[in-house]
């Protein structure tokens, strides 16, 4: 009986540890997706500024590693594909900023596009800084909560 209890308790603790690990990955993933968007927008800004590349061709020269972080599997992805693939891994504020930016992208002349892109990059960068500052505390909270919950459950069920 004790062996069964030990086994059950061990399983609960293990699942708590796995859940903690998954939440750490998710929190770090959010930050890396946001960083990937910042890099992608910087690249897009350069393409608009230097080459005035149309949107239909703009992602052809983008770093495949960046697109992979965003989760696009399509060989010739659009910005909408990138957003759809990464939306659930973005925080609400970054999502709101990107939706606003992407909705108007391509509808203005170069100077205005560059200003909009700069504004979007500034907003995302400030969001990234906020998230990076909060990350250690969020990780501690996520890991602590899951481990405490699994420990508590083990004790209660013993």
């Amino acid at each position, binding site marked *: 009986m004790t062996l069964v209890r030990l086994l059950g308790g061990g399983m609960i603790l293990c699942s708590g540890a796995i859940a903690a690990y998954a939440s750490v990955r998710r929190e770090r993933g959010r930050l890396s997706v946001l960083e990937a968007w910042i890099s992608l927008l910087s690249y897009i800004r350069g393409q608009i500024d230097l080459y005035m*590349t149309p*949107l239909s061709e703009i992602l052809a020269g983008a770093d495949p590693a960046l697109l992979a972080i965003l989760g696009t599997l399509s060989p010739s992805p659009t910005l909408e594909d990138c957003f759809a693939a990464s939306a659930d891994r973005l925080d609400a504020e970054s999502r709101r900023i990107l939706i606003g930016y992407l909705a108007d992208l391509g*509808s203005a002349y*170069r100077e205005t596009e560059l200003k909009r892109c700069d504004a979007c990059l500034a907003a995302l960068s400030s969001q990234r800084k906020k998230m990076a500052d909060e990350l250690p505390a969020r990780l501690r909270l996520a890991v602590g909560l899951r481990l405490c919950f699994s420990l508590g459950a083990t004790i209660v069920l013993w």
Partner: protein
Amino acid sequence: MQSFCSSRPRLTLPSGLLELLPSRLSSAIEVCGAAKAEELRLHSGRISTVTYQSRSYSTGIILSDAELRELLQKMCGGSLYAYGESINQGYLTLEGGIRVGVCGTAALKDGRIIGVGSVTGLTVRIPHAVSVNATPVTDCLLRMRRLGGVLLYAPPGVGKTTLLRAVAAEISSLAYAWRTVVVDTRRELGCTLTDPTLTLDVLVGYPRRTGIEIAVRSLGAELVICDEIGSPEDAQAILSAANCGVPLLASAHAASLTELLRRPALCELHRTGVFGAYVGLERGSGGFRYHFSDRRQADAALL
């Protein structure tokens, strides 16, 4: 102007263009269609018309500001900024050499157009495959090889660009194989020059002056072709190309030789002997008719 549906000519448009147009306009054009439309004139708050055999027909459709704005956005492939420079110059070129004239309100900064706001009109010129006998002009160029270039002139819409394309294809074909460089500033001259056997290079989107300089200095051109010359900057670049011994085949808007040489930049080019021959172009029922003039005749026209 005739009513479109009363005369009912059957009009066909390139499918790519039909997809861009507001559905009510494209269906109005399709329903009534049978020959080839040459031009669409679309206005916000005014009737849209179709031109066929130089006659305008009303479509009965009045587009709104929003529809015209959306159409322009679609024509730019959702990337207005990529066409900003050409829109500022009053046009944009679509796939297949379709040229769209843009009319609106110019935003100026230091006397330079920096954008076109509230677009009120789009004039869509649709190119057609016309069988052109370019050989007389090619022969003229061959005769002129060491004596100067050839300048084509005609009023707008006659077919100068079509003829330039035909000459470019003929003279850079294996029969002559001249190293030809086409300076395609407006992205419409080189769009059909895709035959892999042609010995030509196409400089797409380059300003005429820069394009001519590159053609002469870097691409070893034996012939430079460019469309619609006439500005003092063009004249300066053409002069430096001509001084390198590279003949030029160019076109300019003018109804007659006298009118052509009244333009200061072209008159200057004539005086310096850049062009050895002038070819007036006229469209007749059996194709193009050419009026060749040499320098002496041009001098007489100038007087």
